């Protein structure tokens, strides 16, 4: 992952299930080489990890706290 990559912020922390995962799936579908999807939610999205792995993407968890979760998803 290059630090000069373009970041796309997806904050789903105000959305109820299943919209956070739906938005995330749409966003990773659009993700291009060199782009980083910054995914912000109020909890760890367990089903999203499977989708990331199934699509051969990579992720880095930035923060996993009570009521705040942030990770970066990239190719």
């Amino acid at each position, binding site marked *: 992952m290059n630090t000069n990559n373009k970041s796309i912020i997806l904050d789903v922390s*105000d959305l*109820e299930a299943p919209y956070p995962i739906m938005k995330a*799936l749409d966003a990773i579908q659009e993700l291009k080489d060199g782009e980083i999807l910054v995914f912000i939610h109020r*909890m760890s999205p367990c*089903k999203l990890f*499977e989708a990331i792995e199934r*699509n051969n993407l990579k992720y880095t968890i930035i923060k996993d706290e*009570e009521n705040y979760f942030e990770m970066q998803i990239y190719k």
Partner: protein
Amino acid sequence: MQMQGLSLDQAPPYKIPMFYYILATFYLIAFCVCIFIYGTNTTNRYYYEAIAMTHILTLGFFAHVMLGSLFQMIPVIIGVAYRNVNIQAKVILAFLNIGTICFVTGFLYSNKILMHIASLCLILSIVYFALSSFFTILKTEDKNPSVKTFLSALIFLILGVIIGVISLINHGNGFSSKNFTDVHISFLFFGWLIMLISAVSYKVIPMFYVTKEYPLFLKNHFYWIVSLIIILLSIALISESPLIPILKTILATLTLIFSYTTIYLLKNRKRPRRDTTINLWYFAMINLSLASILWVVSIWFKLDIDFFIATIFGLGFAYSIINGMLYKIVPFLTWFHLSSMGIFDAEMSQVIKSKYMKMQYNVYLISYFIFLLALFIKPLIYLGALLFLISSLILSFNIINAFKYYKKLNKKTI
């Protein structure tokens, strides 16, 4: 590149939980019919008819919805799959149904053989389910508070059912005492029901209602404190200790803390939209609080209001929360399975139409208050049963329609 959506690898087939739910609604209808026939004659909770009717609700409705939901929820929210879920779920469903039917008819017709068949089938189905779930959950590496609460609930389910079955087998031989039945009730109502609802709430409330997480203190300590008090209470009940009122009061206070926290979280949620499910959650938690307070009052002031508290707890709290969960789980499940198969036309709001949910909720609400009034004005029980029957028929219609919605969209892609 074709992107892949959600994985169905760990989830059981859609029809499995749905069969449990649809059958559960049929038991609700049977419950209403029994009230029509036996309702006015059951003035004591130890009457055979009262035991039969209570168990149509607990085994027929509550257990069916809970077991069906756990088959689906444990793989999704805990991330571990049941082994051979298809076969396990079908065998458990078969034994649970034979057990429930034999139990109810055994008590209604005072038939010992049917009671013994019920004992065997219920042990085989529920204890097997609990052990299978326990060891499935145990496989997860993340032993978070929700997981520990689930595990504690399952242990109490096993103990509660075994104690219930021992009472049933030895029924009429002088072994089964009132105190022993009270241990069965406290294990299943507090150890299983309240504990399971708390474990599910820790996951479901923040996820579906955009609330903050439950306080860590509650998540970390509620399950073991409740477990400890239930065990102490059961010892006190069997030994007829003078500590019983104190332990019951602590248990009621803990329950009150849980219900108040849930109401507080829901009240302060980020997106305060009202729908039928949220109304059912509020209604359930208000009734749980009320039942807890009345229980303490009845203990210390020696009031004989068992039936009143049981109605508030059973129909006001337990029924309402399970009804609310069904209306959240069924649309979610339908959407989840359809979208995992690449069918993106599915709309959660279309699975069960909001107007039918609202209609069912309103009829249920009126029936509930009429049931409460019927405790003082007996003949009103028939009106309560009629309205509850209408509500149950609408619930059944809603769940069956959700199944049809799934089949319709699924067929489109074949």
